[in-house]
């Protein structure tokens, strides 16, 4: 090992423990501290496993769209942390549930839904900027495979379409950048922008911008209010929507 390698390794090991965990650290390269569980009304439940590992799932959605994600801190250099997150999703029950007559039928009831498994892999890098602010960038690739006869149309809405496009196109990409930090006392902010790439002749990309403000009470409660500006190219054209966001989060 070269001298430079030794120095780098020493820095990485020395800094790893200090920076690889963080509370309320969803959408960053940090993982939830060991033995801590953070959950939300709408967001994922995250559990710190220690050793730079985090397990997460969306409990509200789990029974209709089974999903599990593992995030691991892969590399720490100085203040910067690089993690990878791998999410396995089985959306078939949800698509079958939505293929129905009447209200709530987002897909035609005659849809034939195959067994679909999707694997999303993301690399996240978080760089503290000082004064509590941090910049996070991420790059992701979703791969999906289907087994069985399929006759399912897309759900042509912003936010939904780019996230489900991989089920139909087998591969999509995403990349984003976020900035988060304190605003005043217990109030924090988070702004981000994310780009989705869809290899489809009708819809090729989508973009979203989030603005979130959170109020943290002690170490266990957090209230988040925000808004999402979503643009998506869709099979018929494009659509822009502004959506409200709300979550109540609890940790133990």
């Amino acid at each position, binding site marked *: 090992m070269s001298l430079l390698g030794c120095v780098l390794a020493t820095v990485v090991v020395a800094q790893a423990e200090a920076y690889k965990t963080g509370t309320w650290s969803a959408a960053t390269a940090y993982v939830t501290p060991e033995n801590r569980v953070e959950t939300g009304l709408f967001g994922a439940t995250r559990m710190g496993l220690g050793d730079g590992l985090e397990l997460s799932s969306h409990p509200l959605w789990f029974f209709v769209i089974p999903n599990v994600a593992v995030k691991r801190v892969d590399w720490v250099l100085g203040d910067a942390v690089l993690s990878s997150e791998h999410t396995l999703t089985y959306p078939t029950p949800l698509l079958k549930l939505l293929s129905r*007559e009447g209200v709530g*039928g987002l897909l035609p*009831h*005659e849809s034939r839904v195959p067994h679909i498994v999707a694997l999303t892999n993301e690399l996240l890098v978080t760089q503290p900027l000082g004064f*509590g602010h941090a910049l996070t960038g991420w790059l992701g690739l979703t791969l999906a495979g289907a087994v069985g006869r399929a006759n399912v*149309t897309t759900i*042509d*809405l912003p936010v939904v379409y780019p996230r489900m496009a991989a089920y139909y196109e087998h591969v999509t990409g995403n990349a984003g950048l976020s900035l988060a930090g*304190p605003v005043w006392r217990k109030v924090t902010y988070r702004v981000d922008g994310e780009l989705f790439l869809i290899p489809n002749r009708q819809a090729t990309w989508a973009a979203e911008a989030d603005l979130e403000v959170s109020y943290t009470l002690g170490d266990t409660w957090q209230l988040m209010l925000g808004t999402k500006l979503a643009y998506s190219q869709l099979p*018929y054209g494009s659509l822009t929507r502004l959506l409200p966001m709300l979550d109540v989060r609890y940790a133990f």
Partner: protein
Amino acid sequence: MPRPRPLWSRPTRILRGGVGILFGLLAACSLTDPFHTDFDAIEPAVMYQAAHLTPAAAPTDSLLVMTYNIKFGSARVRFFFECEGTRGVMSDDEVIGNLAGLAGKINQVQPDVLLLQEVDVGSKRTAYVDQVQWLLDHTHLNYGAYASQWRADFVPTDGVGRVDSGNAVLSRWPIHEAERLALAQSRANSAVVNYFYLKRNILRGHLSVGEHDLWFLAMHAEAFSDDDIRKEHIAMFSQLLTELDAEGAHVVAGGDFNTIPPGSKRLSGFPDDCADGRYDNDDYAGEEHYLDTLYAGFSEAISLPAYQADNTPYFSFTGDAASGWNRRLDYLFTNGSFVVGSGLVHQDLTQGGYDTLPLSDHAPVSAQWVLP
């Protein structure tokens, strides 16, 4: 360790305030009509032009006018809202195939002005094919005006998704000042149902044909209602026609009125009635005089005495191709006149020279409209 510095400094406060106001305004706009289903009382129609214009000679004494409810190019595919219907979407190939059949009929008749109902221009159920543009590009007609009667970015029922469907008028000659005039919705429906439900309208505009300035009115009246909304639609149509007439305009006015002419032999118990359909079977009892004002004040393509003598040759609708045409719902009126005997309901090979039964649940109605 330095203390976290709040972002409450002056430049960021201004920036944040601006972003907040921008997001707030956008949110307010999104929340008032989140799925874009609403229309103003009067809106400009959406104008179209064929990719390649077909030269049209100036007419001499009359124009051939036709009205046709094309059932969004679904031909005889039974959708979930129809009797024993199972389908929710069609493939691109299905839609284009059905439109080719309709274009075949239109090209056979060669109308100068064509009033269309139930034309999809960007609906998921019809593979997002713009049917106005497609028909212009595959017929001799050059110009179009479109007024949506069912538009939503997303309808969250029955897999409908995005829909944009409505009335159109196609013409050999340029169309001017076409407007979408909103009609009332049924008061029997809840606000939520009406938010996503059809918004009927009258499409009004005029054509410059040689030295003639000609007007048109086109309507598709309410089909399903537990109140008198269909009667109101027809009354509004009659009023607009009367107003144009008073102004000295030369008008052709028609469409699918979803009611039967006075003197119809059968008012209910039609051969295509459905045992367990989503909607009640049609019963026109009480509607026998809905069209009296129109018949009294204006000329219709099919003479009323002829119809009353024998309804059958003038039937223009059936929900079931196997049971054949069984009632008349489609009309052409004018404050001028039609060439006597030119009115025709294009029912089949012997009456119209084309088998229209497989093309739509309506048959086209045409007549030679005398120029002033």
